[in-house]
């Protein structure tokens, strides 16, 4: 592809591509995101290519390989257009039938249709699926329309229109005003007003300025940034270009987790393509604007999601945060003014510039505008990425979109905001997804992770899980975080192992508040949230652990014991063979027995037994 040297030329190319795409009548869209690849979607795509070539259809039908659609659990996903026919769990063996029946004759293959877990009905089209229908997919919808490895695809769906409109034409200050007016707030967890950040960076003095895309999505249970960068990298790039134009930056970085190999690959390809086309580099599209982007891979440290730690890591140093008395917008990367935004924040920018601030601000609440992508996971029927307008109640998300609890157990809580957030009980499900409302309730929107937990989850164990995580991830620079989390973990471990004392609850609260107030960075400041929120809403569970030495959910290993239900046991011996501690005895075809003294409560027998004969008490 030759270099494009003017805005006009890009506009013309876009029109040409759009006209070409219109001629293609039939499209087969297959997801090849990380989730669907795990379900072997690559095999399906390869088979599809062969099959279409064999039947001489490869010129007439377009195979579009896309990034994540967000409905990973149903993968591999395939959508046949223009009929909007939706097939799930597609295997390569199904391909010949899809081509000969559905593609050529328009027949529907019943067994590949999606079954709604709530109503039990088979659903034909993508548009009719309740999981999608209840959402407002402003950002995610585009993932299905573009091949992340193709700049042409992005252009054809209207990509880079905001860039054409903005650079060299709209004054940087006007761009910032528009962003301010839209009410866009940081999607990474902090919820800081993006426009304000940009203004401060624009006004700061510095020979060079930087923009950074934070794709170091470390919150366990959140993967919307992976999905966006992996599925639509040019959208993120376009947002960064507009941001760079606005704040006056010449250089940008995408700091991406190395645990997301596909996102790294697609981001690199997108940057290389944009450079080759003249969308990045010197005098972009013939304007006076010069800007380039580099991809840096993270080293797997959770603390590097914090802005100053991330910048230290970009400089090739150990990722430790520093005090932020002078903000990074003034003194950031290499002591230069730096604007750091999250992937989802950048991805929202082109839309705002293209359609205007009002278009964006129509959705949302008083203080939280636009849409937010949430990762809905855990004990729920429909798991996946969900995009809703800010202000949507938790109830709608968990029950209408998520379809309610799986395994037939009642839902007990939803954990929002990852390790910095908290657990909200069912009676708080009327709360809306809104930066301020959730913070007030002791949790936070955070990056948007939403883990639904049912009765089989022990809330004390959840607090222990997050403390273990945070203790492991604390960089150790400041004392409150380094030692405070460790002490809290000791107490919670005591409680889960039957050594808890009633007075420890107050000590835990006091410690939590101290760590919150005195830690250096966001990691430590928010670290006590999982403890505080479970203490606030699930105090009775702590008391049962302490007073009765019992774990009601049957999770805490020291407080439970395994036994064999003799009526159900067939004496097949599978548990005995697989017990790593040789704690099961018994003769073939006779009920087996667990020797409690040898049992380590690893739980392997429960999952191996096909007759559900292992009881937990």
């Amino acid at each position, binding site marked *: 592809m030759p270099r494009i040297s003017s805005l006009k030329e890009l506009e013309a190319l876009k029109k040409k591509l759009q006209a070409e795409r219109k001629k293609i009548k039939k499209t087969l869209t297959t997801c090849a995101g990380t*989730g669907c690849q795990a379900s072997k979607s690559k095999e399906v795509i390869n088979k599809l290519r062969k099959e279409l070539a064999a039947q001489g259809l490869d010129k007439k039908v377009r195979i579009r390989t896309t990034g994540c659609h967000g409905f990973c659990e149903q993968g591999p996903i395939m959508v046949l257009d223009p009929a909007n026919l939706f097939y799930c769990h597609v295997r390569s063996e199904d391909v010949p039938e899809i081509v000969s029946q559905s593609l050529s004759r328009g027949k529907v293959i019943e067994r590949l249709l999606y079954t709604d877990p709530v109503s039990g009905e088979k659903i034909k089209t993508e548009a009719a699926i309740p999981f999608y229908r209840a959402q407002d997919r402003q950002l995610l919808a585009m993932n299905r329309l573009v091949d992340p490895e193709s700049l042409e695809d992005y252009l054809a769906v209207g990509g880079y229109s905001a860039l054409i409109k903005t650079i060299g034409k709209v004054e940087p200050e006007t761009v910032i005003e528009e962003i301010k007016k839209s009410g866009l707030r940081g999607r990474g967890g902090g919820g800081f007003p993006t426009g304000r950040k940009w203004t401060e960076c624009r006004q700061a003095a510095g020979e060079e300025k930087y923009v950074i895309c934070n794709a170091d999505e470390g919150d366990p249970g959140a993967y919307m940034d992976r999905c966006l960068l992996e599925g639509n990298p040019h959208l993120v790039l376009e947002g960064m270009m507009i941001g760079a134009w606005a704040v006056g930056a010449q250089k940008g970085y995408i700091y991406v987790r190395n645990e997301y190999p596909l996102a790294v690959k697609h981001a690199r390809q997108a940057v290389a393509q944009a450079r080759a086309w003249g969308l990045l580099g010197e005098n972009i599209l013939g304007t006076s604007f010069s800007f380039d982007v580099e991809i840096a891979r993270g080293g797997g440290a959770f603390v590097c999601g914090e802005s100053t730690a991330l910048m230290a890591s970009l400089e090739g140093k150990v990722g430790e945060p520093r005090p932020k008395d002078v903000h990074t917008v003034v003194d950031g990367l290499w002591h230069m003014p730096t604007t750091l935004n999250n992937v989802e924040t950048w991805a929202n920018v082109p839309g705002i510039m293209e359609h205007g601030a009002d278009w964006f601000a129509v959705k949302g609440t008083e203080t939280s505008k636009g849409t937010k992508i949430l990762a809905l996971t855990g004990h729920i029927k429909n798991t996946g990425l969900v995009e809703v307008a800010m202000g949507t109640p938790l109830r709608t998300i968990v029950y209408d979109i998520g379809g309610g609890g799986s395994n037939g157990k009642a839902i007990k809580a939803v954990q929002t905001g990852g390790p910095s957030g908290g657990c909200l009980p069912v009676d708080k499900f009327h709360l809306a997804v809104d930066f301020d409302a959730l913070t007030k309730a002791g949790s936070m929107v955070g990056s948007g992770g939403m883990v639904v937990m049912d009765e089989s989850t022990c809330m004390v164990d959840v607090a222990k899980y997050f403390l273990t995580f945070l203790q492991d991830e604390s960089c150790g620079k400041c004392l409150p975080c380094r030692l405070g989390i460790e002490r809290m973990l000791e107490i919670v471990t005591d409680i889960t192992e039957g050594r808890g004392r009633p007075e420890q609850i107050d000590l835990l609260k006091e410690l939590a508040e101290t760590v919150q107030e005195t830690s250096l960075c966001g990691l430590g400041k928010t670290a006590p949230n999982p403890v505080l929120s479970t203490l606030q809403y699930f105090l009775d569970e702590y008391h049962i652990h302490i007073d009765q030495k019992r774990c009601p959910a049957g999770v805490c290993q020291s407080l439970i014991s395994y036994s064999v239900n003799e009526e159900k046991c067939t004496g097949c011996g599978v548990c005995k063979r697989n017990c790593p501690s040789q704690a099961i005895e018994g003769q073939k075809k006779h009920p087996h027995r667990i020797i409690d003294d040898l049992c380590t409560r690893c739980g392997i027998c429960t999952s191996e037994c096909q007759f559900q004969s292992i009881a937990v008490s």
Partner: protein
Amino acid sequence: MHLQSIETAVQNRRSQPHQLIEVLQDVQESFGYISQEAMTTISKELGVPLIDVFRSASFYKAFSLKPRGKHVLTMCLGTACHVRQAKLLLNQALSQLQLKPGEMSDDGLFTVEHVNCLGACALGPVVVQNGTYHHHMTPAKLRKLIQSIRKTEKEGKDHAQNKQS
């Protein structure tokens, strides 16, 4: 990408201290761990004091300072996988292979690691074997996976021996 030598990893990055983590990433990817020799070379070529190279190499979770097995089993212990009993998988792998996390088995075949989220939460619990994702894992499925790797490795070895004799 597989690098022929550490020299290749530092090529085009000489005297650029800020490229330290990128170089460490490439070395880790190609060799499976960061050796002392590698750290000395990187220190010299990038102009970063050896102690800082070591500090970064030991700080970031992505880097291993010890050799890893031919098959690296990575258990995701993120929140979504945790509530779906990912701990059982770790117990299964560690007890079946008689290993501690991060350790290499004596035959050099296995290393079991755990990470805090792979971003495939909807498919949890997830186990990654050398880049291949296995979703909705159960201890039983994992046991079979380990057995099948062992079997394939043994067959490969026998095959090679037969060829030699």
